């Protein structure tokens, strides 16, 4: 077909770029031209290989040879040996630190890769609207195995041994939950999938439902078999129309193939699933509120106990699990508990999907083994902070979580370590912040969300969060006094201790965690009326330096509120009362005469 025989892929990720990949690329191109190989060899820059510690990386195709730590002066040798003579340059191959063996094929170097896709194993591989592609990748075999070879007890035992914990954020052991629901005696039980993904910045559940809906259906059926339920309900927000559509297609196909419905795979086991829609209230991710919403009642939480396992949907025992939790189940059944438990840390097994967002180069959806560090996630998978700014913090756990800072960069991430660091796993949103983000404003942003989403049933959450928000507003506007900082802390603790459900019990976390980590920023806002990040507009002043100003009037002409006065060819002055801090003057000034105080 084509004439090009070899491709050389040079890593153009941030890490490799820093270690001169640009120079290597150019060098290769020059050498290829010199030797007249342009028609046979093509050099191309790629995205990050995720192996930055051994960068710059050069990958040869089609034979997949992977050269590491390539220097500009190595180019000639690679071209001469690999392309012309067809021999590998051994000294540049990756050396296995354990065996000392040289590995040439990146396919057999899986261990260097930071990501393992278990929950996302089919996302981006199969056509989600075609059940046959799912079946081709061992789909529904876990259900088949469970129904024909395993008892419910034995299946639950596998899950318990695997160490899988709830991926919705709580981290409750999944096997144990199933066991508890199984133990309750009732004429009808329900299996529920919590697809009410509400954290700002988290979208892994949507991605699983849109990319691999059958895995959730299969896992729910397995859950039904284990707990003794023959009905499943997926509670999903109506804001996810594509996920809903693909789920419906998947359910229909599964019924057509006899994988949902009656007498599944000739085993006499019956199980079917229906969809219930949520209106997109954050509190409905809480399982009791979710169940009430499914029943057609207001989406308000109730006190636990009774837990849904005892009395849930329509008063019957109900097992609620999150989408990502379900997505792990078929893989665990097929590959075994030991395999799953071999990934992760002592108390948190397997992988976690994170939605990387904020000031990071490679915004994306990643699945990493528990125990990976924040540093690896941000700098290797995420490609570092945007525009080479300085890393400041990461918010995990959304509005219920907290901030992790520089000191936590090397902490292995798992459920318990995150809690110890003052945050939580949550559903897996990771919002990265740099030095231009104000931590007080960040806490205020999350509080604003909570105030909006509080269901209003209990007063600590309804009134407390509102007052907390107002205090934060005072701080960011420069009206707060020192006393307010104590009030902030005290009120936060009261809300945490006295709220009815998880929403209120965790909503002050961003405040507390930012106060713990960035108290100096709070002090600056209150004492010096200063916001170091330049975020809080009320605290900023645009000032004209009379020495630099030549009186060109450009700023005055561009000011939307006529706050700048001054004669032509004379220094101008900004009226702070009128100024709305839009920054238009500073942008226009050609003499760097305007600065922010």
């Amino acid at each position: 077909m084509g004439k090009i025989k070899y491709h050389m892929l040079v890593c153009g990720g941030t890490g490799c770029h820093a270690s001169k990949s640009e120079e290597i690329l150019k060098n290769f191109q020059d050498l290829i031209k010199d030797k007249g190989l342009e028609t046979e060899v093509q050099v191309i820059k790629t995205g990050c290989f995720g192996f930055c510690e051994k960068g710059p990386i050069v990958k040869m195709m089609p034979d997949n040879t992977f050269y590491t730590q390539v220097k500009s002066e190595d180019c000639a040798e690679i071209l001469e040996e690999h392309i012309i003579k067809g021999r590998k340059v051994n000294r540049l191959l990756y050396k296995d630190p354990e065996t000392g063996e040289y590995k040439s094929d990146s396919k057999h170097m899986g261990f260097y890769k930071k990501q393992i896709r278990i929950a996302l194993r089919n996302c981006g591989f199969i056509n989600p609207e075609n059940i046959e592609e799912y079946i081709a990748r061992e789909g529904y075999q876990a259900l088949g195995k469970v129904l024909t070879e395993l008892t419910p007890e034995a299946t639950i035992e596998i899950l318990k041994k695997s160490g899988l914990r709830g991926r919705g954020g709580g981290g409750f052991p999944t096997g144990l939950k199933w066991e508890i629901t199984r133990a309750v005696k009732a004429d009808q039980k329900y299996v529920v999938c919590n697809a009410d993904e509400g954290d700002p910045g988290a979208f892994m559940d949507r991605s699983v439902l849109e990319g691999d809906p059958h895995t959730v259906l299969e896992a729910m059926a397995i859950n039904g078999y284990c707990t003794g339920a023959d009905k499943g309900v997926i509670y999903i927000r109506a804001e996810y129309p594509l996920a809903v559509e693909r789920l419906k297609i998947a359910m229909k196909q599964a019924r057509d193939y006899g994988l949902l419905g009656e007498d599944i795979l000739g085993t006499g086991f019956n199980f079917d699933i229906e969809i219930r829609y949520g209106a997109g209230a954050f509190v409905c991710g809480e399982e009791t509120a979710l169940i009430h919403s499914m029943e057609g009642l207001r989406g308000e939480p109730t006190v636990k106990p009774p837990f849904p396992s005892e009395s849930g949907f329509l008063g019957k025992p109900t097992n609620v699990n999150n989408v990502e939790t379900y997505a792990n189940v078929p893989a665990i059944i097929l590959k075994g508990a030991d395999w799953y438990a071999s990934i992760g840390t002592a108390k948190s097994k397997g992988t976690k999907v994170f939605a990387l967002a904020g000031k990071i180069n490679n915004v994306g959806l990643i699945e990493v083994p528990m125990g990976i560090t924040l540093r690896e996630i941000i700098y290797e998978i995420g490609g570092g902070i945007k525009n080479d700014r300085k890393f400041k913090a990461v918010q995990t756990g959304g509005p219920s979580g907290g901030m992790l800072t520089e000191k936590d960069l090397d902490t292995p991430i798992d459920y318990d370590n995150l809690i110890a660091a003052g945050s939580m796993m949550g559903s897996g949103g990771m919002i990265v912040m740099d030095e231009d983000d104000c931590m007080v404003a960040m806490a205020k942003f999350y509080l604003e969300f909570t105030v909006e989403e509080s269901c209003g049933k209990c007063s600590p959450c309804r009134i407390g969060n509102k007052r907390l928000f107002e205090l934060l507003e005072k701080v960011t506007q420069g009206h707060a006094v020192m006393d307010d900082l104590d009030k902030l802390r005290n009120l936060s603790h009261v809300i945490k201790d006295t709220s009815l459900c998880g929403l209120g019990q965790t909503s002050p976390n961003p405040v507390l965690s930012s106060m713990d980590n960035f108290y100096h920023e709070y002090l600056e806002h209150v004492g010096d009326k200063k916001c170091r990040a330049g975020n809080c507009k009320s605290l900023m002043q645009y000032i004209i330096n009379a020495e630099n100003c030549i009186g060109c009037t450009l700023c005055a002409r561009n000011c939307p509120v006529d706050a700048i006065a001054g004669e032509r060819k004379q220094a101008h002055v900004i009226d702070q009362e009128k100024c709305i801090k839009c920054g238009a003057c500073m942008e226009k000034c050609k003499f760097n005469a305007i600065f922010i105080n």
Partner: protein
Amino acid sequence: MEKIKSLADLKKMQDMLRAKIDLREQSNDPDKRIQVKVAMATCGIASGAKEVMEVFIEEFTKRNIDAVVTQTGCMGYCYAEPTVEITKPGNEPITFGFVDVKKAIRIIDKYVLNNELVDGIIPVNYETIDNK
């Protein structure tokens, strides 16, 4: 559709489907079909994946190139949406990022027809459970 009646039937069906896909994906015969997967989760569609998919289908028909274009879920590379994975017979799948309509045509001109790569390739940086 006939229902699958037992685990044995399911396994038989998997083998058959797997073989069909392997034939499509791993065959060394250059006459076999080219496979194009477009990441079509909500976010991909929002950034234009649907138009890109249509361009691939149209161009392939227009130029009489034998290829299968399918949709798939999120590949995880939000920063580089829309993303497209192309598997040429006998070659490793290659993922291209930032594929707009113009780039889709460039990819067809360069990679599909001439085996030349274009910028914006995203290397696979994760393990799957198959190769674990």
